[in-house]
């Protein structure tokens, strides 16, 4: 790596101040699993790297009135081990466990994964299915927005250059909502997603029907996307295997995958249909288990 100046922040306010002080040439460093790979390949070093990995208020997982608050610096490994996550939103632990391998999960953070804006990221779909919101801090103060609005394009987010992602909140209304996450890659261990899908739903106990189904698809569009037509099809419909299969077929028409050396667009669409059906089935299994 080429030489750079390194500054470090111990909380988010100091990090925001350092970002403003050093201007747009600063690169933010959290777990480094994306940034250091990029810097090793980059022809030029950034003027300054801002290490936020010691920002105490951006760590930790807590249940609050608003919901489950997950600091941006929480690692994928911490998500897999957190008793709170396993109890209130186990699908997040399942998704985290599919990221890279143990070593990368112990370094890579949730915030870094979301800010990378890579369409195949494994943290995005489950959080979008649970309608998570993010908190962003900058020199103009703090704002919150839905995670779906945070993603604006491949490797592009709503974050301004002088802003930081501080935390992610899974709203209280989504806690305990039965959900499933499925990923398909070229190998079982340490592989990026060809397609990943998360589904979350309630089952109306009187009518045995889907209520508030949410489906999120990864790696098949410029950003992680919802599948609104498949969701609308399921809303109020009786829970059957056929309904889940049909929702999968509809979701496949909502995906806009590219083909590349890893998989053709058609294959990815087929994966969307199958993984959506299975993610819905996994969520239903979890709903039954909870009753």
């Amino acid at each position: 790596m080429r030489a750079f100046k390194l500054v470090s922040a111990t909380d988010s306010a100091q990090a925001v101040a350092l970002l403003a002080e050093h201007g747009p040439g600063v690169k933010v460093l959290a777990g480094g699993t994306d940034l250091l790979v990029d810097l090793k390949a980059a022809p030029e070093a950034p003027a300054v790297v801002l290490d936020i990995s010691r920002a105490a208020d951006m760590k930790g997982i807590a249940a609050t009135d608003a919901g489950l608050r997950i600091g941006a610096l929480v690692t994928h490994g911490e998500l897999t081990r957190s008793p709170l996550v396993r109890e209130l939103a186990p699908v997040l632990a399942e998704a985290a466990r599919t990221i890279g391998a143990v070593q990368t999960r112990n370094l890579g953070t949730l915030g870094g994964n979301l800010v990378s804006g890579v369409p195949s990221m494994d943290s995005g779909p489950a959080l979008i299915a649970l309608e998570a919101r993010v908190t962003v801090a900058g020199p103009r103060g703090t704002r919150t927005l839905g995670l779906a609005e945070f993603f604006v394009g491949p490797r592009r987010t709503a974050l301004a250059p002088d802003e930081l992602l501080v935390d992610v909140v899974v709203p209280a209304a989504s806690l305990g909502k039965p959900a499933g996450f499925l990923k398909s890659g070229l190998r079982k261990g340490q592989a990026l997603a060809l397609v990943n899908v998360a589904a979350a739903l309630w089952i109306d106990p009187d009518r045995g029907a889907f209520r508030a189904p949410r489906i999120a698809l990864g790696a098949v569009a410029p950003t992680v996307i919802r599948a609104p037509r498949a969701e609308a099809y399921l809303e109020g419909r009786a829970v059957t295997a056929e309904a889940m299969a049909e929702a999968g077929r509809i979701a496949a028409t909502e995906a806009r995958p590219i083909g590349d050396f890893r998989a053709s667009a058609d294959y990815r669409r087929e994966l969307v249909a199958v993984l959506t059906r299975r993610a819905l089935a996994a969520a239903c299994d979890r709903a039954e288990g909870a009753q």
Partner: protein
Amino acid sequence: MTPLRITVNGREHVLPAPPETTLLALLREHLGLTGAKLGCDVGDCGACTVLVDGLAVNACLMLAAQADGRSVLTIEGLATPDALHPIQQAFERHAALQCGFCGPGVILSAKALLDANPAPTAAEIREALAGNLCRCTGYAKMITAVHAAAQALHGATDERSPRATPVPRLPLPGGGTGGPR
């Protein structure tokens, strides 16, 4: 340059290093601990695996400055002058290494696993070693060796020993890739 204060294998070091120094470069080039290997340099191969505060990490993807004030364990910290560590002994006994380039990383991944989970299943061992690529021995003997080390360390027995039954494939959580549900 503000000096870094890092405990490596139980010994505290205070040393300056340029900001762009990775933890791997610090260990190998500044401290002369060449056990952790430079393989891919991008997080894929696991040859650089060390434990930081007990957790396995890729030392190639961490700045030395991020390990300031923390405790690092490398392969050099396992054996005593009298004996190899039980995991190393198990790898030797089961011929689980050939060229050995991947070995320091594999053994430290195994150590992190056994510290947290004294009696892992074969699937758990596979998951723990998924980030350590081996180009010559293959993984079957390593899984046997980690089982043997678990027994030696903790007297742990596991009826799903890989000798008794074929080793199951590592399942992705929730049934991920693969066959019908």
